[in-house]
């Protein structure tokens, strides 16, 4: 602690760099300075959720290696026929771009949230939700297509039965995350639009006062969903 901290009570002593790490951890009250409770909680939750997805992916890789039947050619299975020509992984590529776009709009929503721009924030959140819903819709289309082609959790016409199991399980779990995210995005958009966050209206269930940090917390979750997709894209579709 420096003398400056004693003479200048208006700002808390905040150090940066590695020294900051040490002083933050050894300080009282909060280990993460300027991080609201909700945000800290979301980070810890995402850490835990990372382990969930990591376990899923590791399991998928293990069964892919251990299975005795050859794995289907993924880029063939997921190809679409456009104008008589087979384009591999086209749908997946579009889905990836959509999810990335939604991440972009979300990031901007967070920015405008902190600027207290109610309208822009709400619209951007809505756009994010729309992108998310589109993603889920395309996933539903993909599922339908595969099911029509005879892919089932217990087997498929292309090769190893684990292909279907892993596919439905991992994309299903990810799709579930996206769907939950969309629902919460809609709720959040309504809140922002009504001005709950400006007026600090207490929440319906929790009774906590609203504020724009909620948008960032929502954003963290959404980016995480995008992040997971990056890994699924690499390990499941490109392998």
């Amino acid at each position, binding site marked *: 602690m420096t003398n400056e901290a004693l003479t200048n009570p208006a700002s808390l002593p905040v150090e*940066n*760099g*590695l020294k*900051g*790490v040490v002083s*933050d*951890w050894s300080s009282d009250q909060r*280990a*993460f*300075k*300027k*991080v609201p409770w909700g945000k*800290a909680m979301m*980070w810890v939750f995402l*850490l835990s959720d*990372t*382990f969930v997805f*990591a376990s899923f992916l590791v399991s998928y890789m293990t069964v892919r290696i251990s299975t005795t039947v050859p794995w289907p050619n993924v*880029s063939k299975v997921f190809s679409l026929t456009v104008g008589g020509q087979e384009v*591999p*992984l086209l749908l997946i*590529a579009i889905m*990836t*771009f959509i999810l*990335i*776009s939604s*991440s*972009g709009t*979300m*990031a*901007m929503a*967070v*920015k405008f*949230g*902190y*600027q*207290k721009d109610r309208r822009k924030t709400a619209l951007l959140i809505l756009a994010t939700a729309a992108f998310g819903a589109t993603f889920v819709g395309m996933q539903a289309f993909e599922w339908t297509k595969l099911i029509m082609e005879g892919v089932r959790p217990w087997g498929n016409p292309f090769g190893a039965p684990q292909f279907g199991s892993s596919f439905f399980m991992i994309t299903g779990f990810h799709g579930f995350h996206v769907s939950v995210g969309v629902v919460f995005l809609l709720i959040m958009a309504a809140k922002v639009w009504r001005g709950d966050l400006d007026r600090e209206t207490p929440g319906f269930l929790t009774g906590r006062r609203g504020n*724009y*940090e909620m948008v*960032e917390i929502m*954003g*963290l979750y959404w*980016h*995480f969903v*995008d*992040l997971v997709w*990056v*890994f699924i*894209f*690499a390990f499941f*579709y*490109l*392998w």
Partner: protein
Amino acid sequence: MTHAESHGHANPAPAKLEGQAHPISVYLWIWGLLFVLSFFSYLVDYFHFQGFLRWSLILLFMFLKAGLIIAIFMHMAWERLALVYAILVPTGRS
């Protein structure tokens, strides 16, 4: 930590408004970069690269994308280092 200095404390606004305030161009840039990287990943498959090259490219793009999302979109680059380490250390270890 140059970012933290230039962004985190550049704006001496009242505590309520403090948060993550960055110019919108940063987000647009990253957005574009992510698009390009995804496109590259896709091309890896499209051109049927095989073997070691395929894998190093896929992983490279994957980590670049993940890093950009975490650092910029999730604002980790601008967080207190204490939080950054608390999150990265357990993830990295596993």
